[in-house]
């Protein structure tokens, strides 16, 4: 009996050390972001087994990989973090011999500021951070950050803001006409005052499950487009607004780590998700666009022409990609943020 237990333990210890050997691909991705069928399909096509490990923030992923000894092959960083990943040499350039279908990427998503010419990464998903509003309670204009920063009485007290400091700060800075990493003290003062004045109207700063909106815990908030779509599919009263003063665009990108154990399998996987029918699975799962030409044809019908997915042309220009701010700016943002949440 004891012997068996000992053997079982030894087997388990051993099985995890061989991870990274041939035929195994280790993906490190955001939690609940990967369609299980995507991995099954990949294994069926290539015979490579896939292991998926989750993270919950860009900072965790970066800290984890920077320290080395992680055993991952693929990571999916957001646009603001891409430059850090690239300049620190954490990513491996795409291998054109294996990643042959780069032409499938929408031309709009090739010369992106965070990875010019797509030398290191391929699109995973992209979206916007805007506002969600229960239009049954409020029938005014929703394409404004005022629904959160200066809310009408019918929404006040039932507002949830995602606890993403950079997104919320960006919307507030754009609201005052500033640039994302501006050091202008007058601007920052107004931003702080706006946030401090808005805070009493907010109920929570939670990632806020879709269920909480559907259940009526929240009537409005700052939210992601895909999540808002999942809310709307359950409660059609909810609508997504694009603040006209400016709102963050974001894109998560799949890339191979420079110390990957199995770079060949990893490159194969990147090429695999460049295929429209595979990219569509990513979108169907999380309800975000993916930037791969022709993938719309394979998407669920409710994705086609969804107002959260198709940015209205008159509001498209207000969407901006951010950058990671220098430490001194980030420190000020953190200080404002802490003051607000004290």
């Amino acid at each position, binding site marked *: 009996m004891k012997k068996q237990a000992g053997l079982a333990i030894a087997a388990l210890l051993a099985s995890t050390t061989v991870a990274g050997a041939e035929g195994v691909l280790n993906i490190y991705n955001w939690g609940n972001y990967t369609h299980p069928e995507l991995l099954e399909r990949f294994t069926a096509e290539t015979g490579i087994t896939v292991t998926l490990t989750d993270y919950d*923030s860009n*900072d*965790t992923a*970066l*800290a984890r990989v*920077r320290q080395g000894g992680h055993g991952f092959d693929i990571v999916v960083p957001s646009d603001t*973090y891409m430059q*850090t990943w690239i300049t620190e040499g954490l990513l491996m350039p795409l291998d054109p011999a294996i990643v042959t279908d780069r032409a499938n990427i929408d031309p709009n998503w090739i010369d992106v500021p965070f990875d010019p010419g797509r030398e290191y990464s391929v699109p995973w998903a992209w979206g916007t951070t805007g506002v969600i509003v229960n239009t049954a309670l409020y029938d005014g204009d929703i394409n404004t950050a005022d629904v959160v920063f200066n809310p009408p009485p019918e929404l006040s007290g039932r507002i*949830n803001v995602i*606890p*993403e*400091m*950079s997104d919320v700060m960006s919307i507030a800075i754009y609201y005052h006409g500033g640039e994302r990493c501006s050091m202008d*003290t007058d601007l*920052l*003062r107004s931003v*702080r005052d706006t946030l401090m004045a808005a*805070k009493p109207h*907010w*109920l*929570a*700063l*939670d990632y806020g499950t879709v269920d*909480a909106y559907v*259940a*009526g*815990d929240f009537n409005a908030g700052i939210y992601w487009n895909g999540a808002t779509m999942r809310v709307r599919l359950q409660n059609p009263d909810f609508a997504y607004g694009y603040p006209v003063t400016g709102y963050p665009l974001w894109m998560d990108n799949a890339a191979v780590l420079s110390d990957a154990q199995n770079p060949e399998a990893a490159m194969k996987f990147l090429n695999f998700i460049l295929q429209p029918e595979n990219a569509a699975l990513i979108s169907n799962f999380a309800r975000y666009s993916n930037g791969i030409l022709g993938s719309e044809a394979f998407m669920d019908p409710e994705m086609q022409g969804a107002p959260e997915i198709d940015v209205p042309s008159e509001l498209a220009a207000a969407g901006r990609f951010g950058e*990671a701010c220098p*430490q001194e700016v*980030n*420190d*000020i943002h*953190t*200080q*404002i*943020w*802490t*003051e607000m*949440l*004290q």
Partner: protein
Amino acid sequence: MGGNGWKWLLCAPALVVLVLAASGPLVIVAIYSFLSPGNMGGVTWEFSTEAWFRVFFRRDIFEPDLVTWNTANLAIFWRSVWLSIQTTVICAVLGFPTAWFIATRSPRSRPFWLFLITIPFWTNLLIRTFAIQEMIRNNGTINTVLLWSGLIEQPLQMLFTDFAILLGMAYVFLPLMVLPLYAAMDKMNLSLIEAGYDLYGSRGAVLWHIILPLVKPGFIAGSILVFIPAIGAYVTPRVLGGGQSLMLGNLIALQFGQGRNWPLGSALAMLMLIVVVVALVIYLRTVGRSDGERRV
């Protein structure tokens, strides 16, 4: 001194694991609190006391020469301490009678009650916290029952308040109070209690003069086990408090995460460590002293 070798030998395996996997790494945190923040997280190896300065003071964002107390950090600090004290008291008030109830069952049924305490805790903290969230949300079970019974007309806002944080922490940490209390009560010498009745007569006096001193080791263990994880709580304030007012654990996590200021996070963590140790020493000294007096 020579006769103490076996004591060290018995402790050695535990100490090796602890030094390698808990205390050793902590030295790194102490060192980090005196370094400068790195680009996008991490540190650069330049000595600096800026992090410690920032724990207590802040330069006004708009007038850099103006230095004031960092009231935001201090407010969060105090909040955490206060909520943790309340949690410990709630756990003690509920836990003592519960442990007593278990300890006074017949010896055969005691394990059953003991297991009943631990069963909910076989589901992990996040699931339990979400279960509470479901229960106290506006259209959750409690509000539904209250509305149905006519006691209230509008749903009570319980979720995303300090009440929710307290409820969640007390719920999560309760067995950490009950189990050590029970362990101390279980082998209590009942003849002492009988003698106590002969001496004092009243139940209250027996409880105060006989029972409480007897279970004190369990009580001390329970309070420590509840207070310390409570002060560093991260998940409960985030999920039940809705993250709209930070606790210390969240503030530290913020610095290591989106704030990208690891030295500041390290300094806050070290400060918390110091406060806990000081509180612990004071607590054990006071409790220990009154114990000595009583024995006289």
